[in-house]
């Protein structure tokens, strides 16, 4: 299995909209799109390569973009967007083990992440030891899947929306003089940096009967209406994870890939750790 590292890179006007529930982080679905684009450039359709994001910096832009005039020249109504500038690194696992650094650098030219054009600071490369690479990168956070935290919160709440809100609601602690949230601490009482992220879609119609529709991008591919879903992710310091004796980077569910559940109509990216990917 090849480990491909793209970055560190900067990208401007990256969509931080997430979906109708959450905003502020690049959506995980964008990582799925990036992995898919790269695979297709290399001639491998629907490859679903595991992909990880290491975020070094993120600065959201506030405000309204200039609305595009519509076809009659009237100014269109503007939807206010949340976009931002990010400095990040993307790590992909290529299962075929055939790619060289030179080929990868050629194929990553003009690549976009969440709509923002990638401007690399270093050429994309194939690396041997990801642990050493993580220490070599600028300081940053790995985006790790924590759907387990969401599951525990939903089990304790009345419905999934309350469960999601509970994870990100702070209650005033008079003694500590600050807002506290029980979900922000692990079993050992250590603080953990949880963020809401857009991870995929809930299909609004049965996936088994999906058929093509007119007006879509491909006339043959089955089409589904869906609603965006949100989950919980943790930001773990990449260097800390690289040098940690326990909870090291190999054990973190940091490699995201599409994992679909047709029974419940869920299409989402799920985080896997390295071992589980190797076993699969």
């Amino acid at each position, binding site marked *: 299995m090849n480990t491909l590292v793209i970055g560190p890179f900067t990208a401007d006007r990256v969509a931080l909209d*997430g979906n*109708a*529930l959450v*905003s502020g*982080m690049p959506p995980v679905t964008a990582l*799925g*799109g990036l992995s898919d684009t790269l695979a297709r450039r290399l001639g491998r359709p*629907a*490859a679903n390569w595991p992909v990880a994001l290491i975020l070094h910096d993120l600065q959201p832009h506030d405000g*309204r973009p200039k609305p595009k005039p*519509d076809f009659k020249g009237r100014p269109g*109504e503007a*939807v*206010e*967007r*949340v976009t931002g500038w990010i400095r990040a690194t993307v790590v992909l696992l290529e299962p075929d083990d055939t790619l060289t650094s030179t080929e990868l650098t050629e194929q990553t030219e003009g690549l976009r992440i969440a709509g923002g054009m990638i401007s690399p600071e270093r050429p994309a490369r194939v690396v041997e030891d990801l642990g050493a690479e993580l*220490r070599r990168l*600028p*300081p940053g956070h790995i985006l790790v899947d924590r759907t387990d935290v*969401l*599951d525990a919160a939903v089990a304790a709440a009345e*419905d*999934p*929306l309350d469960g*999601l809100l509970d994870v*990100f*609601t702070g*209650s*005033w602690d008079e003694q*500590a003089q600050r*807002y506290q949230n029980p979900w922000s601490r692990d079993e050992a009482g250590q603080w953990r*940096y949880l963020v809401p992220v857009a991870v995929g*879609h*809930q*299909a*609004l*119609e*049965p*996936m088994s009967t999906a*058929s093509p*529709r007119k*007006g879509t*991008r*491909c006339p043959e*591919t*089955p*089409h*589904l*209406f*869906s*609603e965006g*879903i949100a989950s919980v992710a943790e*930001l773990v310091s990449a*260097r800390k994870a690289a*040098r940690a004796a326990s909870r090291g980077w190999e054990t973190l569910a940091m490699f995201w890939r*599409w994992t*679909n559940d047709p029974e*419940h*109509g*869920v299409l989402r990216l799920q985080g896997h750790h390295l071992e589980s990917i190797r076993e699969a």
Partner: protein
Amino acid sequence: MQFDPDRYRRDAAIAASGDPNKPATERQAAAHLQDTLPALRPQEPPYAVTQGQIAFFLPLLVNAIFGNKVGSFEALEDEAAAREALAALPVDWARRVVEATGYFAPSFADPKVSRVKSSKRIEMPIALGREAGTPASHRFASGLNTAAAIESSFAGNAADNRLAKLFSSRIADADTDGQPRTLIEYLHDEHAFGRALLELGLDETVKQAAVEAFETQQQAGLSAVTAIDGNRMKAVFVPDGHGGYWQVSPVPSVALYTELPRRIRQRRQAGQWVRRSQRLTSAKTQNVGLQANYQGGRLTRIHASYRRIDTSAYQRRLAALRQGAATFFQANVLHDTEETARLGALLRTILNASEEGYVNADIRAGRDRRIQRLLDTLIEDLEAFQDFVAWQPTPFETEGETRRDHLAEVLVLARRRASPDELDAVAEDMAAAILSAIQRDDPSFTQADARDDRVYRPVFEEARAVAKEELGV
């Protein structure tokens, strides 16, 4: 709220003023009823009405919706006026209104979708229904599994708002389960409420048209939709796991669009804090909902903020270490943290033990645990700095002669061959950083307190042990 015909005037007057001792005037109370009767506001529970009271309630509802600026209770109760308003409804109007009422509205995402040409609308409705058999996840919040005060919305023309309000008015049947349902659902189920509406003057053909359109939405669901407006809607490719793709078009649900801001608001009013982001989606409020007084067109979401790992001071710290004058460990890494505040409180307890209170093994163990955590933080900071230094070209060019230069080398280059004297120096620096952080947090913790042997000794001993473990031979 239970509807009582004998008391509704008084209740309205009290509700309009908000003070039971000072009821509002009739004019104000009637205006208040006009706002609340359609029961679409998320703050208000809809009225629970018994089947015997419905003949009185319906004219109120119809007059509240169709009457312009109702100023008196008589005008609201006027049955002839309600009959006249209902009898004037055309058939195609009813069908159009029900077709444009749905649980998912593409126009939330992009207001331009509401401008879909009428010929295209037949293939791609501007509001989507909900199929009964659609599977829903139990883990992730969506419009399929969230109970909301407002579940459906009307995305059609503003001119059609009144009829849409009537059909979407939610009333609870107090004689049965008490669950609020919309009038169109009562019409569809041949319920007593639907029959009363017909008796009040709603034309049978209008009812048929509305019920047929509703049935199509409920039974055919989204499978009846044959097209999307590809110029304005997203279609995302998702691998299906078998080498192919699905195309997915995200549309937001009315339930989450209205329920998320409502629940965030409730939590904030209860003194809790949820970080949110608010964005305007469109200036057209009728795209958002029918509800009177709902602040429409604003998309509220849970917001994630990112705090980067700050290494901006590292270059300066490196320069300082090169000069051989600075200690590496800094109190500002620990300053204003919970651990520091709690250690400060424990040390205060220990200092006061001779006068009041006591010290036992639990308190001492708690103290040591806190010290350990603060030392972990310092070591983490050091390791991050080591990573930074490792990729600097020639961080230390000259071998210094002073103790501080040795210390910097021991720390930063992690030589792992520190002498006992150097380990003592490192431990002193770490202890000084911790005690200085406590002093900054708590001004009553004096320099003398920090030097007190009961305070300094345990901090230093722990630091010495950590330094030996991290930097010793």
